[in-house]
């Protein structure tokens, strides 16, 4: 027997139940600034989790829903970080412009790299994604005059957004910034969710499930993988742009392959067959880091421990448990 069956339940289950769960998730996210302090959290931690969760969900668009593993997605995240940072630093203190720059820089690089590698598969694909990532990393690392090199790009701050009738002061208010991040998160995650429920999204599931069958149905597999890679890069570029605003800083480590690994860990921990799993994985990762790193510099050890436990006992990730129960 294959263990499968229940795994796309999140995409399939009874419509009513699906909407209930979805509404529940959004209530939790919208109310986060109010319940986070009750569990010793704080609003800007919530913003970080949303941003890294969005990044992990973007990676998972490729891994979990197209069946193609990238270990180099920090490249497009980091380009989003630098795109937004450089606009804020050199061009104009405009949040929408910075966001757009991050999306276009990350996504544009994804389109180019994707075109070069979409014919590769498996471990070769993963290795080439790492190689390209290192190229972008070294550019950011070496190009001192533009990127700030090793020290990163400083000297910019996220800017208040002027809507004409009112101004959303995300610069000074963590609360306003959280809701700005949540709004961008909602749009980008919404686009991914919408696509996955479309005929196009189903061709991606088909490629994940059985590439040979997909090809014999007449799906142009390489072309669809390229599209999926590009979409995923645009989405993670948006996450990167937000990350620049979370920190008011563009850090070369945001392009480094350590972060790619972290994103994959978040996705796997939360459950790669689940749309929301990577967000849960990001939350666990960030909370652990936040709590443990204030006590020991060896916090990564504990994250590794948790990761191993999750993989051993919940091989389908934490949200995989619910999917399995639903099938039983």
């Amino acid at each position: 027997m294959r263990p499968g069956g229940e795994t796309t339940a999140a995409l399939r289950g009874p419509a009513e139940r699906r909407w209930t769960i979805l509404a529940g998730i959004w209530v939790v996210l919208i109310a986060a600034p109010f319940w986070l302090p009750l569990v010793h959290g704080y609003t800007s931690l919530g913003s970080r989790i949303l941003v890294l969760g969005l990044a992990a969900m973007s990676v998972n668009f490729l891994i979990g829903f197209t069946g193609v593993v990238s270990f180099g997605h920090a490249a497009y995240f980091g380009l989003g970080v630098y795109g937004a940072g450089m606009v804020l630093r050199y061009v104009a203190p405009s949040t929408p412009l910075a966001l757009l720059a991050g999306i276009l820089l990350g996504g544009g690089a994804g389109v180019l790299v994707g075109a070069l590698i979409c014919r590769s598969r498996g471990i070769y694909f993963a290795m080439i994604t790492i190689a390209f990532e290192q190229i972008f990393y070294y550019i950011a690392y070496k190009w001192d005059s533009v990127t700030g090199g090793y020290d990163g790009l400083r000297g910019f701050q996220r800017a208040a957004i002027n809507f004409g009738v009112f101004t959303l002061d995300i610069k000074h208010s963590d609360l306003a910034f959280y809701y700005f991040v949540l709004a961008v998160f909602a749009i980008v995650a919404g686009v991914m969710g919408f696509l996955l429920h479309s005929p196009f999204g189903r061709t991606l599931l088909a490629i994940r499930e059985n590439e040979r069958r997909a090809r014999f149905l007449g799906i142009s597999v390489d072309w669809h993988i390229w599209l999926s890679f590009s979409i995923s890069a645009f989405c993670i570029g948006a996450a990167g742009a937000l990350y620049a605003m979370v920190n008011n800083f563009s850090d070369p480590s945001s392009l480094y392959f350590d972060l790619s690994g972290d994103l994959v860990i978040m996705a796997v921990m939360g459950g790669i067959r689940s749309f929301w799993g990577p967000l849960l994985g990001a939350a666990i990762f960030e909370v652990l880091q936040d709590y443990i790193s204030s006590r020991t510099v060896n916090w990564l050890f504990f994250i590794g421990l948790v990761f191993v436990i999750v993989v051993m006992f919940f091989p389908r990730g934490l949200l995989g448990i619910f999917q399995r129960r639903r099938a039983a």
Partner: protein
Amino acid sequence: MNAMLEVRNVSKHFGNLVAVRDVSLRVAKGELRAIIGPNGAGKTTFFNLITGFFAPSSGEIIFDGRNATRLTAQQRVKIGMARTFQITEVFPELSVDENVRIAAEVTAGYALSPWLSAERERSVDATVAELIARVGLTEKSKRAVGELAHGDQRAAEIAMALALRPRLLLLDEPTAGMGEQETYQIAGLIRRLHHDESYTIILVEHDMRVVFHLADRISVLDQGALLADGTPDEIAANRAVQEAYLGKAA
């Protein structure tokens, strides 16, 4: 001259190995042709040549009057060839409905559509429901294909092939590895597709009861070459075929 498929002097070499040797045959519209032969006779290789899994070393493949020799597998699907595989090839973690839906949507030209109008979606819904009913899986349509019994998985795969609106259906050992009941189920399905819906079908099959029960004509391959070609009665009486299967009488 209503040939759906005409194969002219097709050969396939893998290095020094000649897997298919100078095979020619014609399959008429509406015919059910079985291809049989001992293990290693080149049946699956021959199938792969017809469906474009790889190109022949020499020879031509004419599909409905059109030279298909150099077309890719995808292009052959588009002009009306659909196949199933010896080992069932489905999307195991997706439901029967989703499996057939993907095939139907791709065929309708929606493979890149980020959304469908309500009207188009209703039309796809209807097609999918009809195909699933045709192979008898309506009650199991929400279940993951990977959880189903072997015969039902095969039926789902055939529904996917039918969703491609093929003019020629190629089935590679559709009853392989099946028990009595499942074999009966699938043979019945193939018979209905042929008799009631006049599909042109080419069938590679080991189960001789299925072959002689279903086929209009039978082609026998042996060591890559075409040994005989005829009606089931002719083939049953053919001495060369008996020798190929049973070994030469002393």
